[in-house]
Structure formats: C-alpha cells, structure tokens
C-alpha cells in the first residue's frame, strides 16, 4: 500500500558552531509520506543533502518513541510542534498539509548554548540534577515487597511529576527561558515519596540555586511550559516546588 505523500518547504536554522553566525536555510522536502514522523522526514531531507554533497542537518534524537527526551526543536514557533503532549519524534507528518512551509529552530536559551544547527547543549539540566535531584542511600540488597507502603494517591502524584523526560521544551517554550517546570517536576517527584522526603528541603534549595546559577530566566507564571510539555506536567508542580523551597528556607 502506498501512503499519501506531501511536498513541503523547510526553513531550517543552520549554524556551524555557537560562535559562528547562523541563519535559516530553505530546503524542499519532496514526496514525504504522511505516515513518517518529523524526524524521519528530516532523515529523508538529510539523505538528499548528502547525495548533493551538502552537510546534513544536525539534530538530536535517540529512542524515537517519545520517552527519552533527546529530540526536540521549535517547529513553526512551537516546541515539539503544534500537537499537544507530543515529542518531535512522535509528531507525524499527517499533521501537516501539502505545500506547507515549516520553520525549524533549535531551543533558544542562554543556558542551552548551541552546538550545531538544531543541537543545543542541555547539560545545564544535568547540573541541576547533580545539585540535588537524587536520593542518598547506600543501595544494599533489594527491600522486601511492601516493606515501604505508599498509597496509590501518593504514587500517582509522584508518577505525574516523574513523567518528565528532561527534553527542555519547557525552557524553549517559556517566554523567559525559565527551567522551573523541569526543576519542579524533579523536586516534587522525589519529595512526594518516603525515600526522597529526608532530603526534600536541602534538595529544593540546592536545585533552585543551581538553576539560577545556570542562567535560566525567572518564572513569571506564563504557563506556556505546561501547554508545551510533551508529558503534560502541570504548573501545580511549580507551586509545590515553591512550597518546598520556602519550607527549606524558612524552616
């Protein structure tokens, strides 16, 4: 069965290094199957570029099933494209029409320096995690089942926050390039569970300090992050982070 194909015009941000000047380059994307994902469409374009002895477009990707957080670009002004709760790899070309022009840009934030084309360095998020996004226990043997009872409500609360894949779309979508949704997801995920509670206060303070030091903007409750988050993380997590942070500072 031959699926429907469409022709597109891409305007892609090309930039060799962060210190070089970048610009939008126009490429045709011909005979794109609507069943392809956005990344597969880029693969097709890159095959063409390679055949023409041109430098293929650099972009980040890994699992291509929406769970690793590696891919991501701003498509027509929207992080991961216009579909709700979708990563770029899960954005299918059926959501575009024949003849569309698609502008593709990298995540833009001072804290995410550009590496090449659509690839940015998101290690600032790793630094925030290293500052406190963990639980300090000597692992030892596996505990017995049900030795640490956790109610379903608490588990769900933790899971909602733990859904964060750290893709950085919240930073990219935030008008202030703030990482509060990411940091809040990590803080409230761990603070909800008994294993994470003992360090909750120290963690909130350390991660917020690190977030500020990385050069992210300040949250001003624009709520663009929750609208763009591919995992549907709510700004309720940010309110919880604020509570944890005040607890850590005032208590």
């Amino acid at each position: 069965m031959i699926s429907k194909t469409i022709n597109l015009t891409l305007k892609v941000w090309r930039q060799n290094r962060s210190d070089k000047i970048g610009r939008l380059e126009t490429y045709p994307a011909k005979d794109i199957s609507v069943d392809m994902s956005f990344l597969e469409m880029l693969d097709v374009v890159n095959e063409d570029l390679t055949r023409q002895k041109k430098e293929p477009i650099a972009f980040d990707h890994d699992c291509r099933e929406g769970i690793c957080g590696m891919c991501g670009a701003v498509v027509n002004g929207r992080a991961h494209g216009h579909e709700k709760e979708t990563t770029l790899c899960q954005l299918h070309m059926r959501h575009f029409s024949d003849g569309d022009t698609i502008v593709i840009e990298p995540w833009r934030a001072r804290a995410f320096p550009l590496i090449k084309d659509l690839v940015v360095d998101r290690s600032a998020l790793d630094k925030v995690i290293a500052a406190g996004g963990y639980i300090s226990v000597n692992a030892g043997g596996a505990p017995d089942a049900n030795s640490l009872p956790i109610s379903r409500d608490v588990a769900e609360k933790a899971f909602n926050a733990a859904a964060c894949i750290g893709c950085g779309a919240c930073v990219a979508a935030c008008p202030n390039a703030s990482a509060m949704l990411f940091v809040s997801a990590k803080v409230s995920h761990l603070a909800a569970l008994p294993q994470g509670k003992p360090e909750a206060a120290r963690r909130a303070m350390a991660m917020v300090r690190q977030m500020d030091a990385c050069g992210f903007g300040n949250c001003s409750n624009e709520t663009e992050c929750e609208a763009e988050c591919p995992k549907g993380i709510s700004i309720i997590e940010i309110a919880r982070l604020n509570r944890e942070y005040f607890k850590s500072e005032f208590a």
Partner: protein
Amino acid sequence: MNWFIEMLRSSIGKKLMMAITGLAFILFLLIHLIGNLTLYGGKELFLSYVDHLHALGPLIRVAEIGLLTFAIIHVSTGLILFWQNLQARPVRYQVDKRAGGRTIGSATMPYTGVLILGFVVVHLLNFHFIDHTQQTVFQAVDATFAMLPYVVFYTVAVIVVAIHVSHGFWSLFQTIGANHIKYMPAIKGLGVIISLLVAAGFGFIPVYVSFIM
C-alpha cells in the same frame, strides 16, 4: 539575616517579593475603591469620608510609608526580573507562537507595570501633592475631571491596572504555593471578578464626575 537576603535574591525569592507586595496593592486597590464609591453619594458623603480617613492621623503616615516601600520593592524587583528574563534568551525565535498559556495580562506585565507607575505619579500630583488649604479634595476631583483628557487618561489607566491585576492575582497564589485543582479555578475566577471590579468601579468614576454629577 544572610540566609534571608540569599533567599530573596533567588529567582523564587524575587517572585515571593512580587507576590506579597502585589497582594498588598490589590488589597489597597479594593479599599481605595470602597472609599471612592462615596463619590456616588455626592459631595457631602465624599468629604465626610475624606475627613474620617484623615482623622486616622499617624496611621495614614504608616500606610503611606508602607505603600511607598512596597512600591519601591515591587517596581525594582519587577525591573530586575524583566532585565534578567530578556538576558535569559539572547537569540530570539524567528517564529514565536503561543501555545495557549500566555494571556494579554501575563504577556504585558512589565509594560503595564511601567504604565501604572506613570499613572500613579500623575494621580498623586493631581490629588495628593496639591495645596490642601486652598481647595477640598472634592474640588480637585471636580476640576480635574472637568478636563476631558484627564477623564480619558484615568479611565484608560484603570483598564491597564485591571489587565495587570488579571495576571497578578492568580499568579501570586501560584507563587506562594497555593495551587490546588480544588481551589485554583475559584482563585482564577476571583481574579477576573476583581479585575472587572477595578476596571468598572474606578473607570466609571471620572465619567460620572465629568458628565453626570
């Protein structure tokens, strides 16, 4: 005290300062509105309200100093946040679309804030820093709103205040950590009601004084 300064310097600390001072201004606005409503009762009622207010004496001074301090904190922190947030994205997007989170209020906070600061200065020059021995406050109100540009200016200004409050009100609850699926819809609703009250309540006063009174 060091930890306190450090806390206020953090991004969440700055939000906290905006939230607390903002809440104080909203409460002030509502009390100010209740007082101003006496204008609808005519000259006698309004002047009697003014007399009662001034009879509070030293309390008024304390309130004035408090409001001025809060204004300095709110404006300077707001400007710092605006500047830092611009710096956080040195290269802007060529195409930038909203995902549905931003509102007119949230997108214009720094701009409406600066406009409100200008308005407050004019407002104080009109009614506060005048020779109170030569005229009553009522005469000042009457004389100001006899001029059509002032009627337009004040009405537009309070609409700007309402836009600012429309984001500020629910936002301050979010900042202090009071966001819960049970209560947030009510808080947001209350924010809309307060914004409309501010716009309609204050906005109609110049029109009333100018054309109806």
